[in-house]
């Protein structure tokens, strides 16, 4: 399959790619879906405008799984990237191969963080609202965040500082005075490891976590394992909110004004149904149906409303932890390679988001480095990236 679409002209020396959830005016954006195959946006995403203004050159677009809700991109209409029986992520592969300096991605359901962890790269999912989502394809509006992936923490910091900032065009963009808080760096002295989040990881992931803990201790940072039963509930409730929002956001794809239209239909209802049935993959269809049912009269209070209340409980639980610790350390995935068995399981992404959901549901920043994930307090991204630079250096 194709890893990325190359843009032919770029004069800049600092090159980057954008994943296919980010709208571009002169390259098609299809979000990994047959529904948007060949779709060309009429406007550019705000993050790309900001990078172009600062002299960064867009080298091309990388493929994503359908609406980026899967493991690593395996549900893309263009097919999965499999190397030696192992599933690979297009964006991470392009960075690993040294073709570009960094990538701008939309972290919808954690695939960006899983990819960075599995390919030994660094990624930053900033605090929700610090980077404009104007011109990104909406899937889970209350949790998805424009993120950066690169080979080093310094490159992540550089790219993040170029794209962060208030944008009037995005209703969820924070005021500049709030975003400026990210400029204040605080030295990280205390790290909490949540024992409940270590569930299900394989030996290699455990080893990486131990290595990182050793590096932290060597640098005089206190590492403490703590018991917490609430954060581990994030995934169950994130699945509810993600599917409900996804169901609403993709309801507009009906084969009328743009996107895929089925060849055969009798009447308008069949046009809608056949177009959506032929264009959408099974994981997306399942997510739509799950979301639709959680929003139904029978389940709204018991499931959806409960999930919204649980989001506050989880946010408050993190706040309690951050009263005593600077960051939380947890895995980003259960294993460093997904094989054929994982790909056969349609719902594997719903299992793997156990590790990525805590930062998604709370909007807290998360840094992946050395194969592990740090989740920090709001606006602590630069502090976490400085810590990531230490881990990078010591881990070599």
């Amino acid at each position: 399959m194709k890893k990325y679409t190359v843009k032919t002209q770029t004069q800049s020396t600092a090159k980057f790619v954008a994943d296919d959830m980010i709208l571009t005016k002169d390259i098609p954006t299809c979000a990994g879906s047959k529904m948007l195959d060949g779709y060309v946006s009429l406007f550019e995403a705000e993050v790309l405008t900001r990078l172009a203004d600062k002299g960064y050159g867009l080298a091309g677009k990388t493929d994503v799984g359908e609406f980026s809700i899967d493991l690593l991109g395996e549900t893309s209409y263009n097919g999965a990237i499999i190397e030696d029986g192992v599933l690979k992520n297009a964006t991470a592969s392009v960075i690993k191969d040294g073709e570009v300096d960094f990538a701008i991605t939309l972290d919808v359901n954690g695939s960006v963080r899983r990819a960075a962890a599995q390919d030994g790269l660094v990624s930053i999912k900033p605090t929700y609202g610090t980077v404009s989502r104007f011109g990104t394809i909406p899937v889970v509006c209350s949790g998805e965040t424009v993120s950066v992936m690169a080979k080093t923490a310094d490159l992540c910091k550089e790219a993040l500082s170029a794209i962060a900032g208030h944008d009037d065009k995005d209703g969820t963009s924070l005021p500049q005075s709030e975003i400026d808080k990210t400029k204040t760096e605080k030295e990280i002295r205390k790290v909490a490891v949540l024992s409940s989040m270590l569930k299900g990881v394989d030996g290699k992931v455990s080893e990486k976590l131990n290595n990182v803990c050793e590096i932290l201790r060597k640098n005089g940072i206190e590492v403490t394992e703590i018991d917490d039963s609430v954060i581990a509930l994030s995934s169950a409730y994130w699945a509810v909110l993600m599917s409900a929002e996804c169901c609403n956001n993709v309801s507009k794809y009906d084969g009328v004004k743009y996107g895929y239209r089925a060849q055969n239909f009798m009447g308008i209802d069949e046009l809608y149904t056949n177009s959506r049935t032929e264009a959408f993959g099974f994981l997306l269809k399942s997510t739509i149906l799950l979301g639709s049912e959680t929003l139904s009269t029978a389940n709204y209070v018991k499931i959806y409303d409960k999930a919204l209340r649980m989001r506050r409980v989880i946010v408050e639980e993190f706040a309690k932890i951050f009263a005593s610790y600077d960051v939380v350390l947890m895995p980003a995935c259960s294993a460093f390679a997904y094989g054929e068995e994982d790909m056969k399981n349609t719902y594997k992404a719903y299992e793997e988001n156990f590790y990525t959901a805590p930062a998604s549901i709370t909007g807290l920043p998360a840094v992946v480095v050395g194969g592990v994930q740090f989740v920090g307090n709001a606006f602590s991204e630069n502090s976490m990236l400085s810590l990531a630079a230490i881990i990078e250096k010591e881990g070599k």
Partner: protein
Amino acid sequence: MDREILRRLELLNQLRLTEEEKQTFLEFFNSKKSNLEALDNAVNTQNVERMVHVMPVMTVVREDVVKQPFSRDDLQRSAPETDEGYWCVPRVVE
């Protein structure tokens, strides 16, 4: 969830699943629902306020100025079928 509810959901969402997909989805949904029901008593949220936005969100206002950023031709560039500036759909009124 049974097959009747699933059929209603397919209709509502303008989607069709194959027989095999229906079975797989029903198992997935029922397992998710049982898990959520089992968790229901883990944390009492009766007095907890819902959190729709994780960050304070303000209403964004702008000057009430008429703008025409895109032409009709541009907007119809990605349309499956158009005719003289109209989007074409099958006959809706019998």
